[in-house]
């Protein structure tokens, strides 16, 4: 099976400069895993376990201190890798005075789209994320759920092969969560790999075929769907056991 992402012995330490010398904080230690193409992989962990660090390393926002990362065979900083990745950060921000199509058009152009292809991509992303009825509103009028949909729409614009989603359902109401789950399932059915982090074990359980459990910067376990379905405690039990 081809891998969308591979981590081999990756380490990352943050350096925070201070008056009396720098302070160091190790976020990841010797992390190795693969994200198979076309699969939905979940990332679970307590706060500070290194989930966001992994996502930023995949999207080239952070650079590893050690080890090797490959995204579709390229370095994450490489344009060829980024062209195939769509990223939704936690609580994305859009200029409040913009209409969703304007915001999407900007990010579409940054993804290399233009002209009719750009217009089609914006329309498609708005339709998929259910934003079409709200096309006339400004971002300032959007609810948290609609902002999250807009965040997803910008990640989908260039039809990426891998979606990296940081807490995609955090703070949403049950209906919005249901809609986003359906959307992600649809995207996966189209053959896209999805890598998502979440604090909601039940969401991860419903969507993912594989889950990585991070504990204090290390990969504690990789669990396949068959395993947690076979376990009496389910994924929650496995997670609690891993992080304790």
């Amino acid at each position: 099976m081809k891998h969308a992402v591979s981590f081999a012995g990756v380490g990352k330490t943050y350096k925070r400069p201070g008056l009396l010398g720098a302070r160091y904080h190790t976020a990841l230690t010797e992390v190795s895993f693969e994200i198979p193409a076309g699969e939905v992989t979940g990332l679970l962990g307590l706060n500070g376990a290194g989930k966001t660090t992994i996502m930023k390393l995949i999207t080239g926002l952070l650079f590893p201190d050690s080890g090797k990362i490959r995204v579709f065979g390229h370095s994450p900083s490489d344009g060829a890798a980024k062209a195939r990745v769509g990223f939704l950060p936690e609580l994305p921000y859009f200029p409040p005075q913009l209409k969703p199509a304007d915001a999407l058009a900007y990010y579409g152009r940054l993804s290399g789209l233009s002209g009719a292809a750009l217009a089609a991509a914006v329309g498609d992303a708005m339709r998929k994320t259910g934003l079409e009825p709200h096309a006339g509103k400004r971002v300032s009028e959007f609810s948290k759920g609609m902002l999250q949909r807009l965040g997803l729409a910008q990640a989908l614009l260039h039809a990426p092969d891998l979606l990296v989603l940081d807490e995609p359902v955090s703070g949403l109401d049950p209906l919005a969560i249901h809609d986003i789950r359906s959307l992600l399932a649809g995207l996966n059915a189209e053959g896209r790999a999805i890598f998502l982090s979440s604090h909601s074990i039940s969401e991860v359980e419903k969507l993912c075929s594989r889950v990585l459990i991070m504990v204090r910067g290390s990969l504690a376990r990789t669990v396949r769907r068959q395993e947690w379905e076979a376990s009496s405690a389910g994924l929650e039990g496995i997670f609690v056991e891993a992080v304790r």
Partner: protein
Amino acid sequence: MRKYAALVASVALNSFLEGARSRFFTMFAVFAFTAVYASVLAGVMAVDQEERLLGDFGLLLTELTTLAYLLFNASSSLLREAETKTIYLVFSRPVPRSAYLAGKLAGALLTGAMMLLLMGAVHLSLLHFRGFGLPPFYGWALAGIFLKLCVIVSFAFFVSLFSTSAVSTLVISAIMWTLGHFAAEARFLAEEAAGFQGALLGLLINLVPNLQLFNARDAAGAAAALPAAALLPAAAWTLACYFAGLWLLSRKEF
């Protein structure tokens, strides 16, 4: 190459529109128009030199207001994009950091050019209203102001990439702007000073861009036209700040 240029243009246009939409822009514009209008009072006091005084005051106010807004914009732009995580959505795409920085700089300078043209139009209308024509050096003065802005705004972007707050970027850039106007006088002093002192001062002067080179607004009587030689230093210093900024940005993590 075309794709790269399109990326730069996209970032520049977005940055320009964001700048033009900002309420600070409106605030600065209102202040500038009021100040230019208020200069009529000072003009009347100069009696037969009203035309000269109105021209000089208007140009200085135009320059200071545009400078203040652009420095504010340049010092807070990258910081704000990092804080709001907007930059995540940019750098997780195939956007080279060099294109992003070039676009940001171009957007800021485009905003500056628009401000100069708008305020210039208001200023000239005021002169016309008072019965005066277009000052002969006006175009050169605006071009010189723009070259100064190119240098100092690119410097502010560079500083914003290592400074800890927008205020410190503003202060450092404003100091550089002031030193830049003193550079020619400092060179004179260095040439007058002998020995080690002179050599040291001569060396230090090279660390400061000589903004008097572009100060056609001030040298209007003595040398109205900008020397062609002024374009090269403006381009070189702007590029230097861009490369230095890119060096920092390419190493920066978000």
